[in-house]
């Protein structure tokens, strides 16, 4: 979920278009909606029916087993979070464990997540907000979250992300000091200006490698030691380094 205003968000959000059926949603009684999920946890310390009810309000009309972006946006509204700009939305979804399909959260995932995080009301969700800062995560956790960001934002069964979306996502989840702002800016700049058609879409491998690469070569000085001949980094990274070198040369020529 990224901050750029775009014409049709459909490709990002998957199936649901923002204008569909918000008013005409049927809200049937909880009992017929619940496909026997009650006994999932032996000794649950939350009010499960309350959590279920929350989900009922968010899930799709014709598919009670999952909530798509429309429902998620609703939740965000209640929490006063901007789903296009605020990385905490993604962190929340990650913590809840929305892994099965992109741009969706399944009922089971919701219930398991609520149990794990001890949530059964909007207020409790609100209480969670401060802890959703990425700064709290250690390296391993952040890597996992970072991977989730990519996976969650895919369109349907596609395995890649469009370059524009990637740039926006990077800026959203890597702001905050994980990598230097110089690295973030120059890399995004490189992606945006490269004429190579092969980089119109970015793969998960390239996405993850960028982070690992930035850990190993954090700044411009470290880049001097970069040796393409020996590197297993994706070609995208090699070309970025080459691009930075050329920039440096241009700078010196002036």
């Amino acid at each position: 979920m990224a901050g750029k205003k775009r014409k049709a968000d459909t490709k990002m959000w998957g199936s649901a278009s923002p204008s569909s059926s918000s008013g005409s949603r049927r809200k049937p009684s909880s009992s017929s909606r619940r496909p026997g999920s009650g006994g999932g946890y032996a000794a649950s310390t939350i009010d499960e029916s309350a959590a279920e009810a929350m989900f009922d309000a968010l899930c799709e009309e014709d598919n009670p087993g999952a909530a798509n972006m429309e429902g998620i946006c609703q939740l965000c509204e209640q929490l006063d979070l901007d789903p296009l700009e605020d990385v905490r939305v993604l962190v929340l979804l990650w913590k809840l464990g929305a892994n099965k399909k992109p741009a969706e959260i399944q009922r089971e995932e919701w219930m398991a997540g609520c149990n794990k995080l001890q949530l059964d009301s909007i207020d409790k969700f609100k209480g969670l907000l401060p802890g959703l800062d990425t700064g709290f995560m250690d390296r391993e956790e952040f890597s996992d979250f970072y991977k989730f960001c990519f996976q969650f934002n895919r369109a349907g069964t596609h395995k890649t992300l469009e370059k524009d979306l990637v740039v926006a996502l990077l800026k959203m989840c890597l702001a905050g000091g994980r990598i230097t702002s110089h690295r973030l800016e120059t890399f995004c700049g490189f992606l945006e200006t490269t004429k190579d058609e092969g980089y119109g879409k970015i793969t998960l491998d390239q996405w993850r490698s960028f982070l690992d690469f930035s850990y190993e070569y954090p700044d411009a000085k470290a880049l001097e030691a970069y040796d393409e001949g020996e590197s297993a980094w994706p070609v995208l990274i090699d070309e970025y380094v080459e691009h930075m070198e050329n920039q440096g040369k241009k700078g010196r020529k002036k």
Partner: protein
Amino acid sequence: MSQNQGNIIQLEEGWNDVIKKGAIDVLEKTLDDGFDTSFEPKEYIRIYTTCYDMCTQRSPYNWSRDLYTRHGETIETYLRNTVLPALQDKTGQGGTILLNELKHRWSNHQIMNKWLKKFFTYLDRYYVKHHSLPTLEQAGLQHFKTEIYQNSKENSTSAIIALIDEEREGEIIDKTLVKSIVELYESMGMGSLDSYTNDLEQPLLESTRAYYGRKREDWIAKDSTPDYLIKAEKALGEEKTRVVEYLNPATEPKIRKVVEDEILQKVQMNLLEKEGSGCSVLLANDKTEDLQRMFQLFSRLDDGLQPVANIVEKFITAQGTACVDKRQARLDSGEKDKNDDPEFVKSLIDLHEKYLGVIRETFANHHLFGKALKNSFEEIVNSDVGQYSNAELMSTFCDRILKSGGEKLSETEVEQSLDRIVQLFSFLTDKDMFAEIYRNQLAKRLLNQRSASEDAEKAMIGKLKLQCGTQFTSKMEGMLNDLAVGSEQKSEFDQRLAQQGDAKGLSFGVQVLTIGNWPSYKAPEVAIPPQMSKCMDVFKEWHDAKHQKRRLTWVHSLGNATVRATYGKKSYDLQVTTLQAVVLNAFNDGKTYGFTELKEKLNLDDITLKPLMHSLSCGKHKIILKSPASNKIASTDSFSPNAKFTSNMRKLRIPVASVDASHNKNRVEEDRSVAIEAAIVRIMKARKTLGHQQLVAEVLSQLAFFKPQPRVIKKRIEALIDREYLERSSENTQQYNYLA
């Protein structure tokens, strides 16, 4: 005097009366006088018996010890008092005189030693053994060594060395004399060569080194490389002979090493790089003999040939680069850049042949030079200039030889040319590109019946197979096979067609191509006239009965036809393509047709129809009239049959520009991607986990027919990661794991 039983011989008595008087004094006198030493048998027995008796008498009259001692003393005294002064006298009178004296004295000593040993033999048998003493002979020798040898060895060594130097300068010396003295040194080692080695050989080696060091400096300043090498060769030969003539054989390798070191090793690079006469100059002027000499001399040195091979490699590369530059110059000066440059290809072939010969004749086919040739040609052959790669130029060169109407060559010349082009081919990196182009050209030859000789085609494919393996040539062989099968089955089909009768007198032949083997062709679904489609149906029926599982697709863009055009009393046979025939047939009704009309009627696209119309209406023989008349086909043109067509000839060929699928670069790229990925998967499956560098190295070693850039390989690895064949290792960012 015979032994008197019970008559004891006293020591002094026996010694003085018999031994000294009868043997030793006599001996010394004859030696001094220079006469031959000999003793009468009776005299000899007397002395011998006296010794014997004196040694076998019972204690205290057993004089063994005394006799032994006195034996030694005698020799010692003689040497000291007689021999040494004589020698010292001769020292300072010049080396030869000293040596001669030494030789004389040594010879004498040997005689003395021999006789004394004879007389005192009994001591050797028991006394010496019993007391573990040196034998008489050894003792005598030792005395000579101590008294004479040690005192004179330095002078005699100097004398010998001086003589050797003289001989080196061309003087005649007394070799026999030197040899004798050398034998003296050898003997002084008493079982080992130590005396010789330390006292003569060592100083000789030092002086040899100094001598040749001076010579080297002298020669290198004045002589050209070939002249120097001649001198070096001569010197080495002389030293070898010298050892054989008068030195100990053990010296040969040592002295050889010293000389090689001084006159070859130390100036090798100097000689190789000498301006005006160094190795590359000799190569440029084909100085075979000089180069042979150079090769033989430097092969004596450790790693002596590598520098020569390096120069040879550089030289050949420069020659090859000159050929490439020539081609570039021709293109720069405006020559048309086409895919055919026989002049260039031939120049490379000739260059290769020449240096193959040089390596054989001059460098004895030594592997280092074979490698040098290979390295340089790998660089030359892969230097492309202009629009067309050398791979393509080489393939076209083959095409010239193999097509009918190409080069006029005898069978042996063809065989030879093909052999040589395959040798050049072996240096190409992009062999797969060559294969693709060659296949396309082969297809053209075969389908247009332009192949000069099936045997030649087979031979060439055989040579490629030998170089690269079966897989490389399987498609080409498949193509030849298709044609062979076709001609086998032709007569069977002809019979069937004749039976049909319905064929309206059309003679008709079909060539079946197996798709995978041949280049891909467009198969336009042109509207076929009924007479033709009838024949096609007959064939299909017959074929399907024979091969149920095969699917046929008609490729009308490839066929040929003969059309009989009749104008009143005159008629002509037009050799055209199938598509041209279909177009001509459309005009049989005499009507005029517009371009677009024709397009629809015949179901052809612009790209196909335009060249066809051009060939029929704008070429040499205008069978069809075009209006407006011009040299370009526009979609607004209209066409009608040319009722007034005439020609002098009866049989006419109407050529048409072929809309070639010239070799498909994309196809090769695709095949390469597949090959790289297959290699990666193969390797990772076997190794399970591997570092990036190693993986790239192993992939490169597995790819025989092209050499991809590292980035290309990386892209393939990324693609395989994406398809989950591999993953990056979580422990090491530079390592991959295989995912089963």
